[in-house]
């Protein structure tokens, strides 16, 4: 085993060199140039904006977050200041730091996604992420956009037509046969896939008040509860994809992050852990990955072996 003293976390992603494989997921901080800078300084290698929509959204009244034994529920409701103000914040961030930004967009149909992407491509971001798991659509159709292979393909294709920046499709775990949906995104031109968005949604009830804890009643599930599901989905999808995967869902320790990389992720999101363990968790995870590389004599993050796919019984 080769114990090189200087294991770097530097990771290539779609032509950019990042100082760490850790990604600030969309919806965590990422509200303003200040919060993007904060995340960068706390050790993330790549930062993502809140999911930006055509018009500003105030989100839900709340309570919008709740803890349970396995993690967190949130019903923030995709609050964001709208694409134009959001892109101004991105520009300020890029001006100050020169760091790349993953600009998350969300809409409920192809024309709006295309319009968002058009504006985002004129902005200072480096990559576009399409949040295809919009809860509005769930209210309308009972399932997220990302549950439909055809809708995913259609939107990605539309966006790619107008977009000079690499496009990453963010998929929902609330779908059957994720690999085929991820493949559909790739075939439609996606340059990467982000997995997974929050699970569910779920429900928690205040038994004294006899009311849901959150308002509105349901919230997407994140945190440690969803790690094994995320690992499974990332493993299965990255096994069939040629494009890179940003893996996230419950990653809270260095070992979790290494598992995610081994499952096939190129980058690893760390969101809910910022609540449950504090913002210092980002550097702890960076350190944990570095220690793993050293212990195992692996020279770089990209050298972490991928778990073999295959179906032993």
């Amino acid at each position, binding site marked *: 085993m080769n114990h090189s003293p200087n294991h770097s976390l530097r990771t290539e992603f779609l032509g950019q060199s990042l100082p760490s494989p850790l990604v600030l997921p969309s*919806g*965590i*901080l*990422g*509200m*303003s*140039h*200040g*919060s*993007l*800078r*904060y*995340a960068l*300084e706390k050790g993330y290698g790549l930062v993502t904006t*809140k999911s930006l929509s055509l018009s*500003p*959204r*105030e*989100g839900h*009244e*709340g*309570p*919008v*977050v*709740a*803890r*349970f*034994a396995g993690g967190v529920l*949130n019903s*923030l409701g995709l*609050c*964001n*200041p*709208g694409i134009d*103000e*959001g892109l101004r914040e991105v520009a*300020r961030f890029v001006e*100050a730091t020169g760091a790349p930004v993953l600009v998350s967009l969300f809409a409920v149909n192809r024309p709006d996604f295309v319009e968002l992407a058009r504006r985002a491509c004129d902005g200072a971001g480096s990559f576009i992420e399409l949040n295809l798991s919009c809860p509005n659509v769930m209210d309308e159709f009972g399932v997220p956009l990302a549950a439909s292979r055809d809708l995913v393909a259609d939107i990605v294709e539309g966006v790619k037509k107008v977009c000079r920046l690499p496009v990453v499709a963010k998929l929902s775990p609330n779908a059957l046969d994720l690999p085929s949906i991820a493949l559909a995104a790739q075939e439609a031109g996606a340059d990467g896939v982000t997995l997974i968005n929050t699970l569910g949604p779920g429900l928690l009830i*205040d038994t*004294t*008040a006899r*009311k849901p*804890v959150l*308002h509105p009643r349901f919230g997407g599930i994140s945190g440690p509860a969803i790690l094994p599901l995320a690992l499974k989905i990332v493993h299965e999808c990255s096994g069939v994809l040629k494009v890179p995967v940003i893996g996230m869902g419950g990653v809270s320790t260095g070992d979790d992050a290494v598992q995610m990389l081994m499952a096939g992720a190129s980058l690893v999101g760390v*969101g*809910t852990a*910022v*609540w449950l363990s*504090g*913002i210092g968790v980002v550097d702890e995870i960076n350190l944990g990955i570095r220690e793993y590389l050293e212990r195992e004599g692996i020279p770089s993050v990209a050298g972490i072996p991928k778990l073999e796919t295959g179906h032993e019984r």
Partner: protein
Amino acid sequence: MNDRITVRIADTRPEGPKATTLYVDAGMEVLPGQFLMVADFAGGEKPFSVSEAEGGRLGITVREYGPFSRRLRSMEKGGLLSLRGPYGRPFTPRPGDCLLVGGGSGIAPLHLLARAILAAGGRVTVVSGARTRDEILLGDRFRRLPLDYHETAEDEGEGLTAVDLAARVMERKRPDFVYAAGPEGMLAALRPRLGDLDYQFSLERYMKCGVGICGSCTCDPTGIRICVEGPVLDRDRIEELEDFGRYKRDASGARVYFPGALPGA
């Protein structure tokens, strides 16, 4: 695991025409300046400081500003509250000559702080201001404490603001340390009057999660989260901010400029 509790209101106490203190036996320790996310199971969850804490009984002084605080302050004994917290960085009580400046409901956490400073052996001067006399909160409570209490109603006499009055008080006797809480405009007006005095301000920014993940309450350009690294900020932290006294963010995250502040950069 769970940082949320559901409690019944143990008692209430009207505080003039626009505010009420709700008392709960929450069985938690809250330090001066820390806050709770309070919900009433009818939609909405908002940050509130603790104004009193005695033997496990907490007082939350709610001033009516809009629909949520109106509902909350009309709640009665026996009503159910959801409390998350305590969250945030508290004030640091100092054993010297302390000046506490509060505007509107900002006076609430300063009441708890005053008691902590006195307990730590410090000397306390309080300046409390509001637009009208009956909007000055907790005056009776301060008057019962061994401290130097001053208040001002902007619609009376000289029309002094809390900042004006604080300046006068400081002219007479320079404190070792200043603590302030209230509308950001007030804090911004106070800052230049403090010269090289050391201070801590408690900031109010829009909060949704209260635990440092949603980004609502973050400041520019450092990105500090008022719900975690604040609400109480040291002088150094305040000096770094470009938005202090200029703009905050609304529920969508869009900038809202304070009256008189100019958009730009």
